[in-house]
């Protein structure tokens, strides 16, 4: 157990954890530590405010003037070792982080085309993925400028650039598949500016090591010395390709099915198409009804739990202050309800509200044009952050997103958007206001993993501690 720390000082954290920067572009640069001494020197300069040659790690703070760029780093277990962290300290990190994302593949559903054996470079050599640096800015020029810094001086000596991944917003908060994202996030009492969104406040220990977790009495191990682990957290960095053509095709196919099924009229009474969108054909309206059911939000972000009938409710509804008390409004299997059942009754009652994830993501790849469908790779550069990978990210992926253990009505099925679906066996139930749900089948896998790593996001003092390790 770590000794109780002094008052919580958010400025000791890296800035990409408790809130998003909301920049237009991101670049992830993946490095191997080749010369630990130089790498540590570089890290120390970066964590201590940077200089002309070294970009500064951006700390948590509220901006008066937005900086030109933000810069943050995460380390894999192999990376911590490569930097020279000793075995006794390494042994205090949790097993799933030590194993690394690749060895957790089956648990995460990274099988078949998502299997690590299919990941392109640099993720095909997971043992050499040591440090992932994230550069955030509003344009490519700034990203390039920071990347140039990473290719000179101590960085060039100590680190080998293994690969980069670029992401960029193309339509505010919208992501491929056409949904608005980045709406729900855990909020913490300790961050003053977090607006009251009508959701339960999360305990800080959900995000950071060394604070009380959502599970009563339970605390996670803080790797010692305290400066190393305290206020650190873990990030599942995932490169998730999205098959937009497949997704839109599935909506077409399902709309056809519902046009033919008499219960389609219960789902959307003929004549009501206008409440889905002005001027929509019945087929187009049904597509939107299905898209909303799969996610739990209309594509514009309006939650089904508050507005099951229309994406444009009058008066407008909150995008965040809702629960699943009226069971029939939002499908139990919908993506947002699966990955955060909120106050809904779940099988694992003890775990209610304990598996929340901080999500930071940005799309990559060109925007899909339905008039000119293509199969260019596009998707999401996602970060799923929490104090425990095992109790949060993995628990959500394994028990809830896939398997559906939280509610007996979806057990045995996978998340319709994200799950390891095989069209031969997949299913998804569309609830009807009355009668049995309509069971949709034949969902293919829409999201394929293309790389990733489990990262430790150290606090700034921890980065300085790592920089100060004695030479190896």
């Amino acid at each position, binding site marked *: 157990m770590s000794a109780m720390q002094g008052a919580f000082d958010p400025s000791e954290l890296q800035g990409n954890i408790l809130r998003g920067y909301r920049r237009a572009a991101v670049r992830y640069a993946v490095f191997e530590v080749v010369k630990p001494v130089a790498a540590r020197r570089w890290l120390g300069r970066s964590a201590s405010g940077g200089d002309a040659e070294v970009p500064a790690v951006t700390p948590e703070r509220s901006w008066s003037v937005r900086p030109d760029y933000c810069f943050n780093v995460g380390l894999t277990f192999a990376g911590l070792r490569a930097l020279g962290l000793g075995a006794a300290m390494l042994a205090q990190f949790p097993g799933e982080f030590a194993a690394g994302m690749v060895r957790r593949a089956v*648990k995460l559903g990274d099988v078949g085309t998502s299997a690590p054996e299919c990941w392109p470079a640099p993720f095909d050599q997971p043992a050499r993925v040591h440090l992932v640096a994230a550069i955030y800015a509003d344009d490519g020029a700034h990203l390039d400028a920071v990347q140039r810094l990473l290719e000179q001086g101590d960085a060039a000596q100590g680190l080998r650039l293994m690969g980069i991944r670029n992401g960029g917003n193309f339509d505010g908060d919208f992501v491929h598949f056409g949904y608005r994202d980045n709406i729900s996030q855990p909020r913490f009492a300790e961050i003053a500016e977090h607006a009251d969104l009508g959701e339960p406040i999360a305990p800080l220990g959900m995000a950071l090591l060394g604070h009380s977790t959502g599970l*009563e*009495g339970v605390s996670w191990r803080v790797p010692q010395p305290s400066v190393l682990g305290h206020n650190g957290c873990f990030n599942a960095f995932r490169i998730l390709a999205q098959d937009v053509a497949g997704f839109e095709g599935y909506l077409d196919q399902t709309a056809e099915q519902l046009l033919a099924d008499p219960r389609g009229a219960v789902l959307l009474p003929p004549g009501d198409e206008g409440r889905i969108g002005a001027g929509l054909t019945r087929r187009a309206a049904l597509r939107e009804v299905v898209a909303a059911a799969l996610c739990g939000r209309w594509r514009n972000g309006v939650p089904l739990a508050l507005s099951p009938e229309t994406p444009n409710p009058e008066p407008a509804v909150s995008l965040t202050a809702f629960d699943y008390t009226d069971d029939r409004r939002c499908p139990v299997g919908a993506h947002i309800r699966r990955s955060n059942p909120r106050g809904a009754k779940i*099988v*694992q009652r*003890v775990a209610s509200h304990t598996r929340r994830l901080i999500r930071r993501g940005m799309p990559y790849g060109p925007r899909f044009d339905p008039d000119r469908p293509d199969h260019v790779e596009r998707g999401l550069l996602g970060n799923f952050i929490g104090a425990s990978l095992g109790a949060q990210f993995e*628990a959500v992926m*394994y028990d809830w997103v896939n398997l559906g253990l939280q509610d*007996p009505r979806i057990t045995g099925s996978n998340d319709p958007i994200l799950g390891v679906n095989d069209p031969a066996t997949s299913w998804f139930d569309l609830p009807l206001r009355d009668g049995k749900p309509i069971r949709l089948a034949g969902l293919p896998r829409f999201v394929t993993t293309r790389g990733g790593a489990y990262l430790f996001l150290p606090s700034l003092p921890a980065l300085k501690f790592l920089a100060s390790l004695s030479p190896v």
Partner: protein
Amino acid sequence: MSIRSASAALRLVRLRGAEAMSGSVGWLERVVDRLPDSPVFQFLARHVLVPFWAWRTPVAVAEGGPVMTIAPGDNVQRMMNLVMKLKDPSPIGRAKAALAIAQNVDEIYAGLNNVGTVHFARFVLVGDHLCMFSVYDGDFTNYIRDFIATIGSVFDAVVALIDGGDAVIPTEQNVEAFIDWVHARDLYQVPDLATDLLNQQRDGSATETDIRRLPRALILQLQANPNVSLGSGYRAYPGFSAAQLRHRLEVGW
């Protein structure tokens, strides 16, 4: 089941017995055919052959618990077979264990109801060991973690009686270590398919599986791992979670 096949194999299945072929079979054959059952061979096997092959072709201790797959049926009704050595194996020590459990029935039952994913769970004393056998749905670490959150104190009382248990109590503050500790005591489950046992032991370089090696593979695994679960076990109603059964039986979940 591979176990059955392998043990049958050890006894030379298609050996028709010397009587069956007395005309065509010489004495040496008869002796050899009967050899596996002879005390001399058994002595030799135990004291020479097994140690020799264990040294020559070492087999890593296999990980405990069910294998990981993505099929829902493999992820519900999973079996945990915990075998934990008592610090004090005397009748007094064993009575202490019995009491620790008897005194905490309310805690355990309420805890299991709230964890929500457990079908069956029971404690058994076998010789010097306290065993906990359970059938649960979903991930092992979630099961243990949620359980610690609700009945950590009972775990503490029980684990305090176990060899090596002091290192992981109080469990609420040693969640990761406790989960690893439990996992290390959860029995290896021998695969249901013979070839899967061979594949588990094949080092990455080998491309061939020699099915005739099965007996050795099994023997060496058992040498490395004295307690194992034989296969993944029978289920009367496979494929359903505890909550699904309660839901469909209309007793609420």
